[in-house]
């Protein structure tokens, strides 16, 4: 059986699903941080095995987390849609070769970095300028400041990585993560707002409350929380996946469907 669902992929998926759930539960219930870290497995499978496998990994992770005896509970089930989208995107980035190590120097090192940072700041400015978060009658736009701060921190991390590791892929990985995060936020917000009344019981509810305090309506408050948490979470996750892939020998990577696009091509 070859193609996207070879036996190797079938072996990888349960491991990825279990990683998603165990880390997600740890972060959500034990550490109570305003991020999720429950998509490492999804993005890993997407990058290694393609969009369909990635999407399925995400969807199954959410459904199993919700319905499996012993673990089940919480609100994670309906977000299977988001998880599927994340997996799909990860497959897309994988096929585009985003996660391939690109040792470089000079212009080929700085150019992608500049482009990536520019795009990140551009996206941040769109969120920043959204009137839902800026009504001066309610509050000083602390949220917009926070978004800019996030964007700056991410950009600095990207630059630092690229400089230290001399690997231009860092820029593209961060960009892929940021875009995935933004899309995830957009997909999740309606689910959170209409299904659960805007809150999920995790650490992120603080942000939702603060945004509502400032006058945002239910949907925009959820969206705003998403724009804060998701890009950070997905950028971190994407880097984690990138590090993992970079540390696996090319010999083993080649056995996965997307393997060739992940190994730095020999001259």
């Amino acid at each position: 059986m070859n193609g996207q669902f070879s036996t190797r992929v079938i072996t990888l998926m349960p491991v990825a699903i279990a990683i998603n759930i165990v880390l997600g539960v740890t972060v959500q219930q034990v550490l109570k941080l305003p991020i999720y870290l429950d998509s490492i497995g999804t993005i890993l499978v997407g990058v290694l095995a393609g969009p369909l496998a990635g999407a399925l990994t995400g969807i199954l992770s959410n459904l199993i987390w919700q319905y499996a005896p012993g673990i089940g509970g919480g609100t994670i089930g309906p977000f299977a849609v988001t998880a599927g989208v994340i997996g799909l995107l990860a497959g897309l980035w994988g096929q585009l070769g985003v996660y391939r190590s690109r040792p470089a120097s000079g212009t080929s090192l700085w150019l992608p970095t500049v482009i990536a940072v520019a795009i990140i700041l551009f996206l941040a400015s769109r969120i920043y300028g959204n009137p839902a978060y800026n009504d001066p009658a309610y509050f000083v736009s602390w949220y917009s400041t926070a978004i800019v701060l996030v964007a700056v921190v991410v950009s600095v991390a990207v630059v630092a990585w690229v400089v230290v590791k001399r690997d231009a892929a860092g820029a593209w990985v961060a960009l892929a993560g940021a875009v995935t995060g933004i899309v995830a936020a957009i997909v999740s917000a309606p689910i959170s707002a209409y299904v659960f009344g805007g809150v999920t019981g995790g650490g992120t509810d603080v942000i939702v409350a603060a945004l509502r305090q400032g006058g945002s309506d239910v949907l925009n408050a959820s969206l705003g929380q998403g724009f804060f948490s998701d890009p950070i979470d997905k950028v971190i996750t994407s880097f984690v996946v990138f590090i993992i892939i970079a540390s696996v020998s090319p010999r083993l990577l080649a056995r996965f469907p997307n393997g060739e696009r992940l190994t730095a091509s020999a001259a």
Partner: protein
Amino acid sequence: MRDARYAYAGTSRQVLAGVDLDVDAGRVVAVVGPNEAGKSTLCLVAAGLAPIAIGGRLEGSVLLAGDETAGLAAYQAAQRCGILFQNPATQLSGTTSTVWEEIAFGPRNLGLDIGAIVERVEGAMATLDIAGLADRDPQRLSGGQAQLVALASVLALRPSLLVLDEPTSQLDPAGTRLVGDALSRFAAENGTAVLLVEHKTGLVARIAGEVAVLVGGRIVERGPTAEILADPALAEHGVDPPPAVRIERAVAAAGRSGDLVGLDLAALEMEPITGSPLPTGAPLPTGTPA
């Protein structure tokens, strides 16, 4: 195998550089050698997993029950040749709640009818004498027991050849003893051809009729077990001789060979050290070894 040469996918170095090896029905052939000699690769090539399941380039001829492995599908190779790896935990499917179902995993995959499945499961359990474990949870067994279940689930496919890749190297002494005993009974009673790759030459001495020494991807020596293991040149190839041989040499070096007359050293090395009964086994360790 005739002049088998093999390189992993994505590499150019041939890990096996021309191996000739035959294993006949009812015989046990052991392969020893230093690390990085290609012993594990040899196992994968012999079982057909290389190149069928992991890619790579195979040249030369590898025949399983008369068919070239290159032309087989993975499930066909599995029915001709079974393979047992070192780590019991990764060989259990993780999807079954009883040992019985775990052993039935293979025959079920082939779509055999229920009667045939029951027959094969019971046969495999009887061969290894583990019928008492049938209703146990596979993930709560000791290392040795789990390894036997893994072996049974492979034997349930009724292969005519069995490859064992260091089957006891990750087991504690109790598990090693358990599996070693089961293997020696199996080798003595069964008509299956067995290829055993081992570090622990003690086990080799017990069950193998013939030993081949693999160095640098080639077989450099071949012969009856007692001869090869007693050969002083073995140490140059990075292989430790079994305890019995070492005892004999040490005693001979001290000039006291007469003390060993009448001692059956091979049986001696299998005695429990403390004399206490075998423990029932701690639960399977969940982490991979450091």
